[in-house]
Each structure stands twice: as structure tokens, then as C-alpha cells.
């Protein structure tokens, strides 16, 4: 593995255009929130919105959308907020936000263990 340093995205203009200058993202989208498209792309739609709807024909995590689009997660959250607002997507959030110190319940962990053993 090559050492990686913080990278400059190099194209702030592009990111500015993609988000129409907005920088405040919708924090309700966790990295592992699963996004599902409720409709296909329509003509005249911003290309990034269209790409997201294509990707999310099947459930797709926010972090995977970011990787596939090559956009920072913050930018993807803004775009998802747009699509959620117009009812184009639905979001399957992780289990209720716990405090950092709280443990998930043992029943869920048992399922995780079972899944790992079956790999």
C-alpha cells in the first residue's frame, strides 16, 4: 500500500457547480445509510442526480455512492438531500443513533456473528 496524504480535490470550481455553491450537507445521511431510488432519472436532470438514481436502482450505501461518483461525501450528502426532498429516493438509516458509548443489543450482535461465521 502506498502512503496516502490528505489530498486536495483539485477542482473546487467543479464541486461548487455540482452543489450550486452550497456547503451545508444533510447530516442525517450516515456513511452506511442505504439509498434506494424511487424513480428513474428524468431528462434535464443534473447529471450527478441522474447518476445517483441509476446507482440506487438497488440499495446503495452513501459511502459507495461517493466512491462511484468520485465526489466527497459531503457533496454527496447535499445531492441526496435534494433527491430526498423531491421524493426521488428513500433512505434506510442504520439503527437509531446511539450515543457513542452505547452498545448494540446482543440479538443484533448474534446475527452479525452468525453472518461472519458463515462467510
Amino acid at each position, binding site marked *: *500500500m502506498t*502512503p*496516502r496524504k*490528505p*489530498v*486536495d*480535490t483539485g477542482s473546487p470550481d467543479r464541486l461548487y457547480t455540482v452543489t450550486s455553491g452550497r*456547503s451545508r450537507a444533510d447530516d442525517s445521511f*450516515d*456513511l*452506511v*445509510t*442505504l439509498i434506494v431510488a424511487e424513480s428513474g432519472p428524468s431528462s434535464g436532470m443534473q447529471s450527478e442526480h441522474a447518476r445517483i438514481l441509476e446507482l440506487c*436502482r*438497488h*440499495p*446503495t*450505501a452513501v*459511502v*459507495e455512492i*461517493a*466512491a*462511484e461518483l468520485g465526489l*466527497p*461525501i*459531503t*457533496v454527496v450528502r447535499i445531492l441526496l438531500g435534494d433527491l430526498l426532498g423531491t421524493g426521488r429516493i428513500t433512505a*434506510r438509516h*442504520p*439503527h437509531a*443513533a*446511539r450515543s*457513542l*458509548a452505547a*452498545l*448494540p*443489543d*446482543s440479538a443484533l*450482535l*448474534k*446475527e*452479525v*456473528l*452468525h*453472518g*461472519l*461465521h458463515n*462467510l
Partner: protein
Amino acid sequence: MGSTTSELPQQRIPLTDTAETGLKIVIVGGFGVGKTTLVRSVSEIRPLNTEEVMTQAGVGVDENGAVASKTSTTVAFDFGRISLNATMVLYLFGAPGQERFWFLWDRLFSGTLGAVVLVDTRRMDDSWYAIDRLEHHRTPFVVAVNRFQDDERRYSLEEIRQALALPAHVPMVDCDARLRQSGKDVLITLVDHLYDMATAQEATP
């Protein structure tokens, strides 16, 4: 680097339509310790790379205490995926352990099941900050020692525990991050630990 893992598919594999719950485990460690290798060995997809940009107010002070006014900081990280069953999907995040990435950790750790600290005995210093940060967040973790082939001075797990001043309740495990079975064992060690903690907590009224 030799590998006994099967080749991962090039094409994007979508999740099943029944997938509804995303879960997170974070793998932390210094550069070159094998985080991506570990993610790759157990992931069902090729590890993907993405970046997080920090633009929020209140994070504009870097580690030198200088105020970074309008410049946002970007950091890249890898992740992989394991479909556990029809509804649960586990995402594994490889996070750089250096102090300057603390803001990424705070974001990644939020809601994570737990963490794996991957240790290279040749550079154990890299692990201290990670362990300190996890303890601060009270994120449950295990320590996995990646045994490289050229690890001639094989410190025992007990010696490493002492060197890292790890409390007795933190599980430790040897691993070879290149091997799928070994990577799987590391994850099982972590989730076993979480399960024990959860059942103990539930038994306490």
C-alpha cells in the same frame, strides 16, 4: 505481495433489494500496517476509496494551532463490504491512525459497532494515539497484530500488551491480514467481545 484470497470481481456488485441495515467496523492503524489488505481479504467487493472534506465551522484549527480559515481539509479512506445476511450489510473502513486525522475518526466512529487496531510490531508507536482516541470515545476495540513474514523478533502478545499499556479486558489476536480466514477471525474476535459486553450489560438491571 502473495495472496491466497480469491480474486474479487471487477464489476460493481449491487446489494440485494432486501438489504436494509448498514453496520460499521473501523480498522485503524499506521500507514503500511495492512489495513487495506485486511479489508480486501474479507470484503466481497474490491476496496473502494473515497474522501471526506471537512468544511464545518469549529474544525478550522489544525494540530499546530493555526486557524485554517477557508481551506477545507480532505482525507481519503478505503472501505470494503460484507453482506451478512438478507438484510444486514457490514462496511469495513480503513482509517489512517495519525493524529491529524482525528476529525475523520470522529465522523467514522459515530455509530460504529467497534474497532480493530491493527498493529505492526516494528512500529508500535503508531498505535498509541489510535488506542488513546478509542478509549476517549469509549469505542470497544480489539488489537490485531499483523505478523509480517519478516517479523523476526516475534514479541508475544503479552509483551505487546505491556508495551501498549493495554488493559486486560482488551482482546488481542495474531493475524495475517492477507488471509481471508485470518481476517475473518479478527472480525469474529471483535464481535465476540462486543457480544460479551452487551450480554453483561443487559444482565445488569
